[in-house]
């Protein structure tokens, strides 16, 4: 084991024991969809001119997005950082609009304006997709604030990386969350590195990062992200705390990313060993472990798994075709989606000059 968290079997926990085979298969399918989507995106990124900018792959961390989101209800919301493809697919966004966004097409979820770091689907309670490290942490707090203000029973899941804990806005958010009893759950996806910097070189702490929550009298927990059952159990505890007591939680989930920080990070074997990467792939791959789990439970066959993988791959390929064939945004659209009032052509939007090119 490479996680500091002792493993324990969470299959029999209340939140897991009544899961149907269909549920368990669905989790597997969703993790596979994320992985295949990203493998396809990586392949096409490298093809001349299909995409630009950054591409941060979530591969290796799929169990976190799928496990946490699997528990969410109608008033639970999700917001994350720039490594956002996994959460986007987990909340139900289609591969087509996601791939088209990567291709910078008008059919993209953000009309080609946001790119890889900025997937959004407010209709699915998904608020992005944010490029500034920890910049989303006050926004997540605001989602929780609005829920409480409106008297809704819900929670805001705000995902962040281990490197984001050293941004001031996160700490300000923790104090506000505790002071005002806001139903926000900060989920630290601790993959051990912020770009090329290991956890030890970026953060001072005692046992773990989540423990800093104690200073704000916030409950915290730590979780082994490779086990989808455990992710669900620890997340459910936080969700109930949010729903029942309107109290925040900081949940640190150990995980690992297989690829570089972004596609640009070719030298990622400079700051971590090939052997370390292989060890994770061999022993801690969330998909492999979940697959083995379901096989051992006697509810999954190799054939079923291959079928799932193939359909995920097919879906990804289809999304590439969709993206590739989709039209580019028009030049005129560059100044659209800047101001609501202008886009809607309201009286306010028609009054005075809003744009200053002549």
């Amino acid at each position: 084991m490479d996680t500091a968290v002792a493993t324990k079997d969470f299959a029999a926990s209340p939140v897991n024991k009544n899961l149907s085979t269909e549920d368990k298969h669905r989790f597997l399918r969703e993790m596979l969809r994320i992985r295949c989507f990203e493998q396809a995106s990586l392949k096409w990124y490298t093809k001349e001119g299909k995409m630009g900018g950054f591409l941060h792959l979530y591969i290796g961390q799929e169990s976190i997005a799928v496990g946490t989101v699997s528990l969410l209800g109608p008033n639970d919301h999700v917001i994350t950082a720039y490594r956002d493809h996994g959460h986007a697919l987990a909340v139900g966004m289609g591969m087509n609009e996601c791939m088209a966004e990567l291709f910078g097409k008008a059919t993209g979820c953000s009309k080609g304006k946001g790119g890889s770091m900025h997937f959004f689907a407010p209709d699915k309670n998904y608020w992005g997709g944010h490029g500034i490290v920890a910049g989303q942490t006050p926004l997540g707090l605001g989602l929780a604030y609005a829920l409480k203000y409106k008297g809704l029973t819900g929670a805001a899941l705000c995902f962040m990386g281990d490197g984001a804990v050293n941004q001031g806005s996160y700490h300000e958010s923790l104090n506000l969350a505790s002071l005002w009893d806001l139903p926000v759950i900060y989920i630290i996806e601790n993959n051990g590195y912020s770009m090329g910097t290991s956890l030890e070189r970026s953060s001072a702490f005692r046992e773990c990062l989540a423990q800093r929550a104690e200073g704000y009298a916030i409950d915290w927990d730590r979780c082994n992200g490779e086990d989808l059952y455990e992710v669900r159990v620890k997340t459910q505890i936080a969700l109930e705390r949010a729903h029942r007591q309107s109290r925040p939680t900081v949940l640190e989930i150990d995980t690992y990313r297989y690829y570089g920080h972004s596609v640009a990070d070719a030298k990622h074997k400079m700051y971590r060993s090939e052997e370390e990467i292989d060890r994770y792939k061999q022993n801690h791959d969330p998909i492999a472990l979940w697959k083995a789990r379901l096989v051992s439970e006697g509810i999954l066959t190799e054939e079923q798994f291959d079928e799932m993988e193939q359909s995920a791959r097919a879906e990804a390929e289809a999304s590439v075709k969709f993206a590739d064939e989709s039209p580019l945004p028009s030049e005129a659209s560059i100044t659209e989606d800047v101001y609501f009032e202008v886009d809607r052509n309201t009286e306010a939007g028609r009054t005075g000059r809003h744009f200053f090119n002549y």
Partner: protein
Amino acid sequence: MPKLTYRVALNQAFAEEIERDENVVLMGEEVAEYDGAYKVTQGLWKKYGDKRVVDTPISEAGFIGMGIGASMLGLRPVMELMFWSFAYVAWDQIINNAGCVRYMSGGLINCPIVIRGPANGGTNVGATHSHTPENFLANTPGLKVVCPATAYDAKGLMKTAIRDNDPVMFLENTLLYGEEGEVPEGEYTIPLGVADVKREGTDVSLIAHGRAALTALKAAELLAAEHDISAEVIDLRSIRPLDEEAILQSVRKTHRAVLIEENKPFCGVGAQISSMITEQAFDELDAPVLRVSAIDAPAIYSPKLEAVQLPRPMDIVAKVLKIC
């Protein structure tokens, strides 16, 4: 019409909008139990309670960002920065989250938030507390920027800002809170993007915003009384959207313009207006467009000197005399 202070006019706008829309919530440091550091929110917490008027810790990045997040879900937070100068600890939240999230989401999200507070020098509180970032904010497509000079404008523009579905940066002035002006009874609003001709004139256009508009009015009186020069005073009121037509109309009439602002000169709003006039009305100009701004240094503390650092009527008169 009854006379109200700029402070009370704003206070009325808050009260009326709180009653009109249950999603309007006021937040900021000391805005509730303490009635506001400058008493702009006086009595509102007592009247509307903890839910609608909320005191925050000293965490601008945290609570401004929180307000932006809450506005994405449909609240209409009216966030007070005790001083706009403190926006600099929340700058990323304002520029990147309020300013860019609509665009990056392809228009799926909008942030109906107002961020407000005083932005001015002249009160001897030193360099760090005297910033006037209207030019920074207006440089940012996605944000709207309003700088009212009178009680009437402050109330009418604030009500519009709160109802606007885009993020509106509302820059007030501690030196104006106590200034009285006529404010009609009952409901009225003033659209953003409409300048106000605060004085008609024929010889030169004095174009300004915020407190500088009042300084321009005083200068116009001096010009009329002592130099027989008829100055027109255009109060921009909102910087983005900008009422360009009003500016150009005035320049087409007077063929001369002096731009006044209390900000530092380099890349101030005056620079933008000047370049716009030159580009749009070059042939109408009988003289160079001149600018009056604060003396180009951080805000000095020394009370007597800070009064000199900011534009005075005499400074405007001197510039006008160069071109008239």
